[in-house]
C-alpha cells in the first residue's frame, strides 16, 4: 500500500517545534521513506504561532499537501487554526496543559507533561513524549527513533540520550495502548538504507559554494539567506574561506568586488532588502567586469515585508537593478540538487563572462528539507579563466579591457610581477583608465553587451516533465518546481493532458531552445509566487510567445499542489 502521511507540529516559537520536526524527519528517512518538510514561522524569538510540517511517502515527493493526518498541538492556536485541516486524522494534545473547549473523537489526549515527569523526572522531555506518541499511532519500528535520538543528543551525554529514549518509548507505548483504533496509521517501512541525504536548500547552496572553492564571503545577516552564511562560516577554517560580516550590504558587495578583483572566488548572501542596498555595486560589477556571485533568498516585500515567509517577488527588480545596461545572469534552483550544482556553476559563469551572477532562492526552498541522492562532487568543474604568470610574461603590456571578438578580455590580477591591473567605475578604455570620448563609449558598451549574447548560448533549456505535446503546459521558475511536478502527476492520473517546463536558467533565457521546445505547445500557464506574473512577463518579452493564463499567489505562503489545481479549475484551464 502506498503511504502518504503528513504530520504537523504547531506551537509557539521557543517551544522546540524545530527539534520535533527534524527528529521525525530523520527517523522517517532512516527507515527508507521519502521525506519533505516545511516551516511556517513568524519573525520573533519567543511566542506567536508557528508550525513545522513533515510529509512522508514511498514515492519521491517535492511538495507539501494540505490534509494533515497527525497534528501535534503544543498550543491552543494549533487546535483553533488547524483542526479543520484534519479530516480523518488525529490531534495529539496534552489536555492537562491546553484547555479544549469541545472535545471530539479526533482529539487524543496524551499526558505529555505527566509522562515526562514520571519517567524522567523533568518536564523538558514532554516534546519527546509527543514524538513517541506520533510514532506509536503509526506502530512505527521504534528502533529508528532510538537511533536518531542517540545521534541527535550525542553531544549532550548518555543521561540525556537515555532520558529521551525513555520518554519517547513511554509516549509510544501510551499511544499504542490507549488510542481507540490502534495502529490507525500503520506504515510499512521501505527499509532502504541507501545513503540519501536529508537537506535544506540553504545548506545545499552553501555546499555548492564550498565545492566551487569560494574563498571570500562578505554579507550582512538577513532572513532567509543567513543560513548560507552561517553554514559557510562554520566550515570556513577547514575550507580556507574568509567570512566577514560587513557593516552593511553596500560594504558587503563592494568588499566582494575588491576580493574578486584581487583574484579570489567571492560571494555575498542577502534577501531583497539587502539587495536594494547593493544595487549600485551591482552596476560596479557590471562596468568593471568583476565576477561576483550573489545569493538572493526572496521573502515578501516591499520594505521589511514578511521576513520569514516566502515569495518570488524580486525577479523584475533583479533583472533591472542598477542604472545603465550591462550583462548579468540569473539562476533559480528548484531543488537541493539545483541549489548545489547551480551555485557551483554560478562561479564558473561569473569568471568566464566576468559578470555578476545571481542564485535566486526563497524562504520556501531555503528552509524546507528534502530527501535526495548524495550530490556528486566529481561533477563539479572549476573554470577560473585567469591569465597565468607564464601567459602574461609573453606580453609587452597588459590592458584589462583588451578588445577581443567575444567581448571577454583576458583577466590578470594585481600582484602579477611586472604588470598592473586598472579598473574604473567611470567609462574607461582598454587600459582601464577613465575615457569619456564617444567613440570609446561605443566600443566599450558593445564589448560588454556582446557577452550577454554569448552567455545566452550557454544557458540550459528548461526541463520537461510529463508528455511532450500536452494540451496544457505549466511553466514556472525556481521553487515552484516541486508542487508543479505533483500537479502534473495528479492531473495526468485524472486523465488530463498536462506537462511542466521548469526554468532554472532564468536570464538570459535560451530563446532558441525554448522556441523549439514550445513550437507546438498547447495552452501555456505560468505559475509563480508573486502578484504580477514577473516571470511570465520576462518569458513573453524574450520569446515572443504568449502566456495564456497566470496562476499567482502572494500571501506569503508556498504553493501546494491542491492550491494550484483549485486555481486551474477556477480559471477553467481544466
Amino acid at each position, binding site marked *: 500500500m502506498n503511504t502518504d502521511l503528513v504530520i504537523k507540529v504547531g506551537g509557539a516559537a521557543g517551544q522546540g517545534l524545530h527539534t520535533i520536526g527534524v527528529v521525525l524527519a530523520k527517523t522517517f528517512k532512516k527507515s527508507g521513506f521519502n521525506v519533505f518538510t516545511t516551516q511556517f514561522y513568524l519573525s520573533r524569538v519567543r511566542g506567536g504561532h508557528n508550525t513545522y510540517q513533515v510529509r512522508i511517502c514511498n514515492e519521491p515527493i517535492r511538495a507539501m499537501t494540505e490534509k494533515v493526518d497527525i497534528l501535534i498541538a503544543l498550543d491552543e492556536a494549533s487546535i483553533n487554526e488547524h483542526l479543520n485541516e484534519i479530516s480523518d486524522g488525529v490531534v495529539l494534545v496534552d489536555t492537562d496543559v491546553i484547555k479544549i473547549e469541545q472535545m471530539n473523537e479526533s482529539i487524543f489526549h496524551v499526558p505529555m507533561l505527566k509522562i515526562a515527569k514520571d519517567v524522567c523526572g523533568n518536564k523538558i522531555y514532554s516534546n519527546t513524549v509527543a514524538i513517541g506518541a506520533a510514532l506509536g499511532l503509526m506502530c512505527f519500528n521504534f528502533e529508528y527513533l532510538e537511533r536518531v535520538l542517540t545521534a541527535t543528543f550525542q553531544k549532550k551525554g548518555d543521561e540525556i540520550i537515555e532520558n529521551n529514549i525513555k520518554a519517547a518509548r513511554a509516549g509510544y507505548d501510551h499511544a499504542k495502548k490507549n488510542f481507540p483504533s490502534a495502529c490507525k496509521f500503520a506504515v510499512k517501512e521501505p527499509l532502504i538504507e541507501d545513503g540519501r541525504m536529508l537537506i535544506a536548500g540553504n545548506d545545499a547552496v552553501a555546499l555548492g559554494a564550498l565545492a566551487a572553492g569560494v574563498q571570500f564571503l562578505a554579507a550582512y545577516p538577513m532572513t532567509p539567506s543567513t543560513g548560507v552564511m552561517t553554514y559557510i562560516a562554520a566550515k570556513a577554517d577547514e575550507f580556507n574561506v574568509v567570512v566577514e560580516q560587513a557593516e552593511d550590504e553596500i560594504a558587503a558587495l563592494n568588499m566582494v568586488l575588491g576580493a574578486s578583483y584581487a583574484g579570489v572566488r567571492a560571494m555575498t548572501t542577502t534577501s531583497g532588502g539587502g539587495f536594494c542596498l547593493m544595487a549600485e555595486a551591482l552596476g560596479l560589477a557590471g562596468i568593471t567586469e568583476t565576477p561576483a556571485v550573489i545569493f538572493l533568498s526572496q521573502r515578501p516585500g516591499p520594505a521589511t515585508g514578511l521576513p520569514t515567509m516566502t515569495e518570488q517577488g524580486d525577479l523584475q527588480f533583479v533583472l533591472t537593478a542598477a542604472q545603465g545596461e550591462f550583462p548579468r545572469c540569473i539562476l533559480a534552483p528548484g531543488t537541493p540538487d539545483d541549489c548545489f550544482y547551480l551555485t557551483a556553476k554560478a562561479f564558473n559563469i561569473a569568471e568566464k563572462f566576468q559578470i555578476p551572477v545571481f542564485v535566486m532562492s526563497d524562504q520556501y526552498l531555503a528552509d524546507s528539507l528534502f530527501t535526495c541522492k*548524495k550530490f556528486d562532487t566529481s561533477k563539479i568543474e572549476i573554470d577560473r579563466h585567469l591569465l597565468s604568470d607564464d601567459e602574461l610574461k609573453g606580453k609587452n603590456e597588459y590592458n584589462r579591457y583588451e578588445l577581443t571578438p567575444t567581448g571577454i578580455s583576458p583577466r590578470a590580477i594585481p600582484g602579477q610581477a611586472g604588470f598592473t591591473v586598472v579598473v574604473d567605475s567611470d567609462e574607461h578604455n582598454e587600459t582601464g583608465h577613465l575615457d569619456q570620448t564617444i567613440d570609446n563609449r561605443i566600443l566599450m558598451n558593445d564589448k560588454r553587451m556582446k557577452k550577454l549574447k554569448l552567455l545566452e548560448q550557454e544557458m540550459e533549456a528548461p526541463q520537461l516533465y510529463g508528455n511532450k505535446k500536452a494540451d496544457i503546459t505549466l511553466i514556472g521558475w525556481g521553487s515552484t518546481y516541486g508542487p508543479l511536478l505533483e500537479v502534473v502527476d495528479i492531473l495526468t492520473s485524472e486523465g488530463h493532458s498536462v506537462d511542466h517546463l521548469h526554468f532554472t536558467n532564468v536570464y538570459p533565457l535560451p530563446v532558441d531552445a525554448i522556441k523549439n521546445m514550445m513550437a507546438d505547445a498547447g495552452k501555456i500557464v505560468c505559475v509563480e509566487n508573486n502578484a504580477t506574473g514577473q516571470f511570465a512577463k520576462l518569458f513573453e518579452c524574450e520569446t515572443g510567445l504568449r502566456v495564456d493564463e497566470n496562476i499567482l499567489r502572494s500571501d506569503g505562503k508556498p504553493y501546494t499542489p491542491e492550491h494550484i489545481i483549485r486555481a486551474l479549475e477556477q480559471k477553467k484551464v481544466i
Partner: protein
Amino acid sequence: MVSVEDFGEYETEWCPGCGNFMILKAIKRALAELGKEPHEVLLTSGIGQSSKLPHYLKCNVFNGLHGRSLPPAIGAKVANHELTVLAVTGDGDCYGEGGNHFVHNIRRNPNITLIVHDNQIYGLTKGQASPTSELGMKTNIQNHGVFNTPLNPLSLAISLDCSFVSRGFAGDVDHLTELIKKAIQHKGFSLVDVLQPCVSFNKLNTFKWYSERVYRMEEEDHSPKDRVKAFERSLEWDERIPLGVFYVNEKPTFEDHLEILASGPLVKNKADPEKVDELLDSFI
C-alpha cells in the same frame, strides 16, 4: 631600487595650483622610498577630484563608487595580503557618503592606509559643503552658511581607538611624505587626513589660511601613545592646527585574526570540490 620615475607621469584633470598635485607627489615619493614596485601596490578610491589620483601613477587601481573606497580595499587585502593597499579618497567621499565604512574599518583594523584629501568641500560637484566644511561657510546650496557641526575626523578616529591617526598638509610635501611612509609601515588601519586647499571652490581655507596656522607636533612635546593627550590635540583648530602623528596603538590587525592567512595569501589556494564529500556525509 625603485624610483619616483617608475610610477610614471600622467596628464591630470585637476585645476592648476590644486593641493592634489602635492599629495600625488608625496604618495609617489613615499612608495619609491619604501621600495614598493608598482605591481605590489593597490590604490583604491571612490569618486571625487581626489579619487582620480590612482589614475595618475602607475600601480594597480580599483576606482570604485562614490563613498566606497574602503570596502574593496579590505576585500582585496584579504584576498592578497602581500599587496600594499592604500585607499585614496575625499572628505565627502570618506566622511560623508562612506562614513559607515570609515567607522567600521577603524574597528576592523585591516593593515591598509587611508589617505583623505580633506579640502573641506565637494570639489568635483562644484563647491557644496562637505562634512568638514567650516561653520558659516556659504555655498550655492548652503546659502545661509553651514550650520551643521563640522565632523572632526581625528577626534572621531581617536575616540574609536584607531590604530594610527595622523594629519598632513598638502603645502608641506616633505612632512607629508614622511607621514605617508609611517602610515604605510604601520601595521594596522592608518588614517592620514590631509589638509588640501581647493583653489577653485574653497575660498576660506586657502594655502595661506592653512600655512598661517599649521605646526608640526614633532617639534613640540607630543607622545602618540597617550590617547587622552592625542584627543586634546585633535581638538585644536582655529588658532593653531597640529600636523603629524596624533595617536598610535599597535594591536592585532584584521588579517592577524584570520589564521588561515598565516600559510600564505588566500589567492594562492586551489579549490578541491571532493573535499565537500565529508560534509555531504553528515546529511545522510
